[in-house]
C-alpha cells in the first residue's frame, strides 16, 4: 500500500497527490512515469511523475478527473492509500545543454513539463516556457514554472488568464523571431502535441513529445501502448514515452486513445450511479 501524504485540488478537475514511495523517489528522473491501481477491482493507469523528493521519499503526480478511475482517485484524501504504485517507468528525458529551449505544457501536461524544464535549466539551458489550458481554472504551477524558466508565457483558450491564444501561437512567434532555439519539448493532449509539431516542423526545430497512450503492465509485456514513430511500431512504455515529435503518427495515437470510449462510458455511468458523483 502506498500512502497519500498530501492532496491539493489545483482546480475542480485537477488534483495533485504527493505519494509515499521511497524507492521510486530515489530513482525517479524527469520524463519517467509510474502506474497505479487503486484497489483490487481497479485498472492499471499510467500517470506522470511531476516531481519527486528523494529525502522525503515521495513522488508527486497531477491528474485530471476524466473517467471512472481518475474520478475515483480524486475522492481519495491525504492519509488514504493506493494499493499498487509501480515505477519509475519509461526512459527518462535526455538532458544536456542544448542552448535555448522552449518547453510547452498544455493542461495537465504542465505537471510533467515542470521537472523537465527544471532539469534543462540546471543543465545550463535558457528555458522559455509556454503553458496553457482551456481556461484559467485549469492552469496551475505558474509560480513553479516561472521559477525554472527564464521566461514564462501563459495562454488560455478563453483569455481568462494570460494571452487569449492556443500554445502554438506564441510558439510560432518565438520560433519566427528567435532562430537559435535548439529544441522544443511539448507535453499535453495529443492534439496539442500534434499541432506543436506542425508548427515546429515549419521552422525545422527538433521537438520531443511525451506520448500518453493506453497501457496495461507498462513494462513492455503487452503492447497496448504501441505507437508509430518514423513508420516503425514502438512501445510507448519502454521505448518512450518521449519520442521525436516530427516522426510520430498522432492520428493513430488519438485513434488508439479512443479504443475503449464505450467501455469508459459504461464504467463511468456505473460509478456515478454508485457513488453519487456528478
Amino acid at each position: 500500500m502506498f500512502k497519500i501524504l498530501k492532496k491539493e485540488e489545483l482546480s475542480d478537475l485537477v488534483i495533485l497527490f504527493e505519494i509515499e514511495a521511497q524507492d521510486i523517489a530515489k530513482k525517479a528522473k524527469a520524463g519517467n512515469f509510474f502506474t497505479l491501481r487503486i484497489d483490487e477491482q481497479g485498472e492499471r493507469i499510467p500517470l506522470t511523475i511531476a516531481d519527486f523528493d528523494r529525502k522525503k521519499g515521495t513522488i508527486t503526480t497531477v491528474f485530471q478527473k476524466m473517467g471512472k478511475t481518475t474520478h475515483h482517485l480524486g475522492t481519495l484524501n491525504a492519509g488514504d492509500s493506493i494499493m499498487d504504485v509501480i515505477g519509475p517507468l519509461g526512459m527518462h528525458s535526455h538532458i544536456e545543454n542544448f542552448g535555448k529551449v522552449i518547453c510547452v505544457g498544455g493542461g495537465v501536461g504542465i505537471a510533467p513539463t515542470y521537472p523537465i524544464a527544471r532539469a534543462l535549466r540546471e543543465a545550463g539551458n535558457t528555458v522559455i516556457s509556454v503553458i496553457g489550458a482551456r481556461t484559467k481554472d485549469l492552469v496551475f504551477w505558474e509560480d513553479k514554472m516561472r521559477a525554472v524558466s527564464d521566461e514564462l508565457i501563459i495562454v488560455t483558450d478563453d483569455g481568462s488568464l494570460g494571452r487569449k491564444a492556443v500554445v502554438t501561437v506564441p510558439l510560432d512567434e518565438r520560433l519566427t523571431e528567435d532562430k537559435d532555439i535548439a529544441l522544443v519539448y511539448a507535453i499535453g493532449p495529443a492534439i496539442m502535441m500534434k499541432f506543436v509539431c506542425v508548427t515546429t516542423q515549419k521552422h525545422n526545430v527538433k521537438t520531443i513529445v511525451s506520448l500518453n497512450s493506453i497501457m496495461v503492465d507498462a513494462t513492455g509485456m503487452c503492447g497496448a501502448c504501441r505507437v508509430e514513430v518514423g513508420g516503425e511500431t514502438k512501445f510507448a512504455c519502454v521505448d518512450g514515452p518521449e519520442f521525436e515529435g516530427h516522426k510520430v503518427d498522432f492520428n493513430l495515437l488519438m485513434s488508439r486513445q479512443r479504443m475503449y470510449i464505450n467501455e469508459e462510458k459504461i464504467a463511468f455511468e456505473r460509478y456515478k450511479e454508485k457513488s453519487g458523483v456528478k
Partner: protein
Amino acid sequence: MEEKKEDKQPKKRVTMKEQEPLVRARNFMEVPCGYTPEEAVAEASRCLSCLNPMCRKGCPVAIDIPSFVKLIKEGKFIEAAWKIKEDNALPAVCGRVCPQEIQCESMCILGKKGEPVAIGNLERFVADYEREKGEVQIPERPKLSGRKIAIIGSGPAGLSCAADLIKSGHQVTLFEALHKPGGVLIYGIPEFRLPKAIVEKEVDYISKLGVKVVLNAVIGKLFTIDELFSEQGYDACFIATGAGLPMFMGIPGENLNGIYSANEFLTRANLMKAYLFPEYDTPIKKGRNVAVFGGGNVAMDSARVALRLGAEKVYLIYRRSEAEMPARKAETHHAREEGVEFLMLTNPVRLIGDGKGNVCAVECQKMELGEPDASGRRKPIPVKGSEFQIEIDVAIPAIGTRSNPLLTKTIPDLSLNKRGYIIADEETGMTSKKGIFAGGDIITGSATVILAMGAGRNAARSINEYLKWKYWDTSKFVS
C-alpha cells in the same frame, strides 16, 4: 479361460469428467472436474510398479512418481502430496498444465499397448486434496545460513528456485514486477485451465516457507542488480523474468483498434479480470468475430478466452497444417470441441480498417507445404491468387515473444545472445557475471512451465554450490 484372458487386458484409464464443451465455452470455470478419491485409487491401481520406472526419467524435475502413485493406491492422499512436494513445489499447477503426454506419461510402460497411467490427473488430485482438506504441511525452517538471495520474477522458475533455496536456510526475496505473484501462471494461463485461487494458494505456500515476496518491483528500474548486491547485501541472484515482449506480424493494419497481442489479451482477461468488466475496471473488446493467429498453446488459450467473452465465431488461423501445430493435443482438442474454427494452411497478409480506426476484416492467403525448413517442419509457401477476406472485429496475433531488454540492458557485463536472451549454462544457470544465475524463458525463449521449474531447481542447486565455494567458471562465455 475367457475370464482369465480378460484379466490380462490392461484396465481402461479412468477418464476425468469435464464440463460439457458448449456449456464451458461460455463460462470461465475449470474444464476438467477432477477425480473423486475412488477414481484416483482406481487409476493409481493401474500402475504396474515397474522395477525400473521410466516415468520418473520423463519428468523434468524427476518427481518420485512410483512412490506417490503407490501412496494413492493405499489411500494415503496427503502423504502422496507431500511426496511430490519433495521435488515439486507447485503440484496443483503442474498437474494441470504440464504436457505429461510427452513427458512422464509418454514413458509409462502401459502406454506401449494401451493408455499410460494418468500421472498428471493423479498429481492434480492429491494436490487439490491436500489443499482442500487444509492439511498443507509446512516443513520446519532449517538453520539460517546468513546468505541472501534475490530472485527476479515470480513465475514458475522463480517460485521453484525460491522454494528450494529457502529449504537450504537462506534468506530469499522474490521480486515481482506486476501487482500479483505467479508470472505466466497469473497473467497468461486462463482461469478455466488454471484457477487463480490455486496459484494464490501455491504462492502462499512458498511464502509460508519463509520466502519474502516483493510486488510492484520492476528490477532494472527500481533497483539494479548491482544495487541488490552492493547496497542490499544479496549474495547471489537468479534472473527468471520470462520471455517478455510480444511479437507482431509486421503486416499492414496491425495497429488498428481491436488488435491485441496474445499477451495483452490474456493479461487483460486473466490478471486484470476484464471478463468481469464492469465489476472490474479493466475493459476488453468482446469481439463478435475473432481471429487468432498462431498454433501454440497461447493461441489456443486466446481463442478459448475469446469464446468465453461471448464471441460468435472464433477462427484459429495457422500457416502450417495441424500436424505441425506446437500446441498440446489436449488443447487443440478442447478448442475444437468448444467450437473454435480451425483455418489451417492460412496466413494473414493484411488487416483492414473500417475507416474509424477499428479492424473490420483480415485478408488471408492459402498456403501449401514445401520442403522442411530449419525447424524440421515443412515450410509453408503461399498459393498465388488464393487471397480471401474474413470479417472480424478482434484479432489476436499469438506468434510468440522476444526478449525484454528492460532488465538486461541495465547489466552491462552480462552476455546475451543475438536475440537478446541471457546466455547461461543450461545445467547450472551460471551466466557470464559472477553471482548472477538465470533460467526459464529468459534463456530458452518461450517454453513450458515445467521446464522453467526445472531450470529454477537446477539454479537453486548451483547457487548452493556457489555460496559454498564462491567459484565461478566463465570459460564457457569467453568467445
